[in-house]
């Protein structure tokens, strides 16, 4: 048992300090206002302070921190994308994640499990090869493997999928990991708080003041805040914020759902994704199977659950793992995903001076938390986006220069 836990047994008073201050009312002005106290917003606040020395920062969260998609995703981290831009970006995120528990001194249970994207059709195999080739090119560990290797890693998997969709192969991505999602938000919140950033929960932005094309302040339910720089990091709520500054974007909201079983002893070590069967699944350190599927098929600004989702998902889970028939689903839930036409985020500057966008995270935002925080902090500090996120700029749509992730996003988790 680690010695660090001894103090809890020995001290009379609980020796752990607050993670973050409990602040009620924001100051009159800040250098930077970050809208959204999820992983991304909090990471941006953390790196603004750590990398750029900017600490006069307010993070405004209308609910509680990490209560949006940070706390609703299935906590998968990977970088096996299709385009070199995507792979480089997510790889940078994976590298930060690998040392993040130590950096934040909070155990994020960053657990490297290996990630199989199963292919059931020849065309899926082609896409796997494409991704593997691009990944290898930029130095990311992804390879196409055959059924034997999959069966060896996961002997419980029915390789024929009940005869419905025999597995032809997979893309195996060794660095694929899962993490404790809440911890990521809390760790960054604590880090940002210690540097002096101020986090306000239950604080909702009502409007954003723009004069002569420049941001000059935000109105909240707790008063007006003067600021020249505003970052929107509000996955699922982006269109409501961009509407405040009359900014058009391609983002539409589709719910993404997930569900979890009761705990069982560990048996599934890898993360498995099947595009054809629309399933992704891993087993958490608590022993629950955490499962998701594809996006809900229509736009709705709700986090409601549907029966269709869980029926479809479990039916396909049984194709893969027939022995789960009597394992029980405990809970299902939903999040709201910012979807873009090319399945890549929208990051960086906008036509409005001082208004920065960290959006369009669709179903892949959690894995990008550290690197999005870092690059958005750099964008704000320098009023210029780093090269790493150049291809994610908003203007790519007007330029007809969409990113090529579309091909890999059938189930893009």
């Amino acid at each position, binding site marked *: *048992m680690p010695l*660090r*836990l*001894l103090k*809890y047994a020995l001290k009379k008073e*609980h020796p*752990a300090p*607050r*993670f973050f201050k409990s602040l009620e009312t924001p100051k009159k002005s800040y250098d930077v206002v970050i809208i959204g106290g999820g992983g991304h917003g909090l990471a941006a606040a953390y790196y603004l302070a750590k990398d750029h020395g900017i600490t006069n920062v307010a993070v405004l969260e209308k609910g*509680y*921190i990490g209560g949006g998609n940070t706390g609703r995703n299935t906590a998968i981290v990977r970088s096996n994308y299709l385009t070199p831009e995507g792979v480089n970006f997510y790889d940078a995120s994976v590298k930060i994640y690998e*040392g993040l*528990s*130590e950096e934040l*001194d909070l*155990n*994020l*249970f960053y*657990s490297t499990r290996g990630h199989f994207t199963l292919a059931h*059709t020849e*065309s899926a195999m082609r896409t796997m*090869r*494409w991704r593997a*080739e*691009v990944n290898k*090119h930029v130095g990311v560990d992804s390879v196409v493997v055959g059924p034997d290797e999959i069966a060896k890693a996961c002997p*419980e998997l029915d390789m024929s999928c009940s005869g*419905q969709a025999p597995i032809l192969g997979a893309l195996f991505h060794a660095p694929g990991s899962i993490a*404790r999602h*809440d911890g990521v938000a809390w760790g960054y919140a604590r880090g940002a708080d210690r540097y002096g950033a101020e986090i306000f*929960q239950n604080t909702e932005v009502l409007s954003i003041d723009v004069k002569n094309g420049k941001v000059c302040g935000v109105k909240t339910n707790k008063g007006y805040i003067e600021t020249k720089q505003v970052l929107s990091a509000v996955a699922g709520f982006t269109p409501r914020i961009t509407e405040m500054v009359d900014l058009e974007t391609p983002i539409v909201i589709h719910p993404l759902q997930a569900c979890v079983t*009761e*705990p*069982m002893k*560990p048996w599934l070590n890898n993360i498995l994704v099947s595009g054809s069967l629309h399933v992704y699944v891993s087993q958490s*350190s*608590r022993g629950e199977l955490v499962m998701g599927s594809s996006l809900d098929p229509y736009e709705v600004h709700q986090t*409601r*659950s*549907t*029966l269709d989702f869980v*029926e479809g998902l*479990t*039916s*396909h889970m*049984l194709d893969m793992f*027939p*022995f789960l*028939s*009597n*394992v*029980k*689903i*405990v*809970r*299902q839930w939903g999040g709201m995903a910012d979807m873009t036409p090319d399945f890549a985020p929208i990051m960086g500057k906008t036509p409005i001076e001082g208004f920065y966008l960290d959006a369009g995270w669709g179903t892949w935002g959690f894995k990008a938390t550290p690197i999005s925080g870092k690059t958005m902090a750099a964008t704000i500090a320098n009023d210029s986006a780093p090269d790493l996120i150049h291809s994610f700029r908003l203007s790519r749509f007007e*330029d*007809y220069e969409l990113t*090529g992730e*579309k091909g890999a996003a059938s189930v893009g988790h």
Partner: protein
Amino acid sequence: MSFRIPKQAREWLNRDKKINFTFEGETFTGFEGDTISSALWAAEQKVLGRSFKYHRPRGVLSLANHDINVMLTDGTDTNMRGDIVELKEGMSLNAVNTIGGVKKDKNSYIDSISPLLPVGFYYKAFHTPRRLFPFWENIIRKAAGLGVVNFNYPRILKRKQHAHCDLLVIGAGPTGLTAAYEAAQAGLEVTIIDENRHAGGSLGYNRAGDKASVEYLDDLLNKVVRHPKITLRTDAYAAGYYPDHLIPVVEAGGITKFRAKAVIVASGAFEQPPVFRYNDLPGVMLGSAAQRLIYRYSVKPFNNGIVVTANDYGYRVAIDLLDAGTKVVAVVDLRSGSNGGLHAAELYRRGIKIYPGHCVYEALATSDKSSVRGAVICAYDDKENIALAANKFTLECDGIAMSAGWAPAAALLYQAGTGMQFDYGVQQFVPNRLPEGVFAAGKVNGIYDLDQRMRDGIRAASDALRHLGHSVAPYAIEKHNGPSPSHAYPMVPHAKGKNFVDFDEDIQIKDFENAAKEGFDNIELMKRFTTVGMGPSQGKHSNMNAIRILAKIRSLPVEKIGTTTSRPFFHPTPIGHLGGRGFHPHRLTAIHDWHQAHGAVFTDIGAWKRAAYYPAANHSKEDAIQAEAMAVRKSAGIIDASSFGKIEIYGPDAAEFLERFFTGSYISQKVGSCRYVLLLDESGVVVDDGIASRLATDLFYLSIGTSNAAAVYREMQRSQQEWQLNIALVNVTGAYGAMNIAGPSAREILASLTDLDLSYESFPISHIQEAVVAGVEARVIRVAFVSDMAYELHVPMAQSQHVWNALIEAGKKHGLRPFGSDTQRLLRLEMGHHMPGIDTDGLTNPFEIGAEWAIKMDKPYFIGQRSLSILAKRPLRKQLVPFVLASNFNADMPMECNLVIDGNEIAGRVTSISYSKFIDRCIGFAFVTPAKKAVGSEFQIRTDSGSLVTATVVETPFFKNQIKSQKGA
């Protein structure tokens, strides 16, 4: 020794049938109708499970279908719930999550080191140094989890049903039964469900010595069961509420998806434990659990019990205990003053000692911790909610029944979007804004008195009737009178803790206090940090107390704390039920059986099963494909193309429709000719292509690829809705079978079955003719997709097997052989045709594949035209080129999606590649940078092994045309 008592009225047992089973290796006997928990408790087995975190011994807590302390395995199934699963002959049961058995669980040491494991401990350690984390993680993962999954458990295919009713009543207690009866009397079709094996709810067990309650229940049940308009389903729970009153009802046999016009939620309330040190010992149970043991299973909960109560309910429990032959040592009431009304008076009369203003400071365990041996009692300050432990004393007992109050079973109401407010009169959340068509009654509505509950049921029925358009007068709204059924703060702080709030997750009061100290002081953050309510019982016995504790910590009224979001499922629901039978529809052509009989290997394309190739014995896939392709080049081959999309566009505006929908020109297209069609989306990206054949001025016959056909047709329908042209669209994909006979002998073979003039002059390439082939009316199209000498025959689906057979027969002497879709891919490549979806991706525009020739920019409009005009001004980023490898190439063969590498940069990728035996070269398509597009340019492909292979850009087709002179080729 046995806790079994004489038969109680309406017990759930069949005493005629004894059931033998084993638990942890020991043999026991119960009765049919027992649950595992009741049978074990009857046998005085108290340690039935171990807790999730500290591995503390646990027994019966609630017996209310969420008693997760008793989770078992029978070797086949796992995480079986002892309070739900009925006993069966020969069961061999063990508790889950123990090492060495439930009594001597080796992991029980964790309980003694619990100070080392404060709330959220796993966030605070094990991560430094980083390299050791996998070691710790392994230990933690193994310690976590409950049962072990059996990989040989059979796949269970449960049926699913749909059902409709006017009114669905959830909960067949006195409230629900009354509501159902009232509504049915007024003419509604009513279904009433209850998760328990028998209806009646609390009327069945909450008797407090009142013998009449049994008769009352009988009467009510009789009325309901006999009513022709009421269906009663027991052992059936409502798993969740989904929009538009969709409620999946789960039974052993499967799920029934109810769609009700109105819903009455009469789901009652969960009894909540008071929180004191060692309130989790086996033998400490909820008052209602004790009552259920007595009246459902005729089992007494203990011999000498203490009742600790914080409401009047505990007094009722005490009477039931006495009636069951249990000695009641004392009733300890957290509240001061005289409480309990008539029941208290009766207890006095029966000589029971009552301690108002007192609490159980802690329960005392027997030396082996398997049971209770006593309780430390002291005065309780009900204002400050602290124990005044100075004058504590000990009472001996072997069990404690607890009654502190209730939490509404409101999950479905929350999921339906009900607004709830905290009612201090009953100390619980009650609905104050119900969604349309959803009604609440009884305990879930804050009504506890039996007569009041019945009236509330009638009131809800009248509300539902009015919602459904019946004219009935509003019924009076009930309001709770008298002392609150729930205590505002039934917690007893203790310096040494182990006063459990959440029994699933072993969470104590101090865990909440410490979580708040660390900043997790709103309910959602607290839930996530402490994991309260996240275990298998989903907070049914813990969420309300957690809210109270947080309110206390923050000195806020309870309603300011709010509740966490309620999500399906109400009870954990098996994957087999939810997944059901599974449904994998696929489409077969009319010739499918023939392919199968001839050894075809099938591939899935869209919804279709297509023959990919026909492997000969001892030959590889590659050999089969090359042989089939050679047949097409040297003699003849035939492919079943029935899965192609086939759409008729009929009407005066048919050509105009195509003009707008596709990129080319169709107004000028001659009747009898065929033209290439290319479909773009609004952003100018290539979607699909195909062939449009003009059969008449006002009739086009369109054939398109298999996988996109449904989507293309759908988009055509949408465009027609917008454009409102004078046309009709008919999808004849399933009406016509299609086959393509190709190769030098194709004409001769076909000629033997038709009178049609097949000379190249009268039937050139890219033309269509209607003719009789093998006695069947056919549309014959000369398309040059796989060969210049090819005929595509479209015949009624039902006759396609006949025509196919005739062609096969006629082709025998010419060496005709069938070929599959994999071979077709090679053949079209040899011909130099690119394929959407193979040689394009989700962003490819027509300029990048050299399809400018297919685009008529000077027409008024087509889909994607305006975007193309923008793209035309922009530099090309990539270009699809045909290429060959060196003629003597025999190294590491590149594969599709291998990258084109220029220096150290990705310069493109291979989209198609194959060795062609006919050409004796490796040929393919690749995207390259525009600088490399000229014929003769060389570029490098990196193979899987990392070696670089040089490719040379060439012209298409890859081989000289077979009929060079022909016009229109």
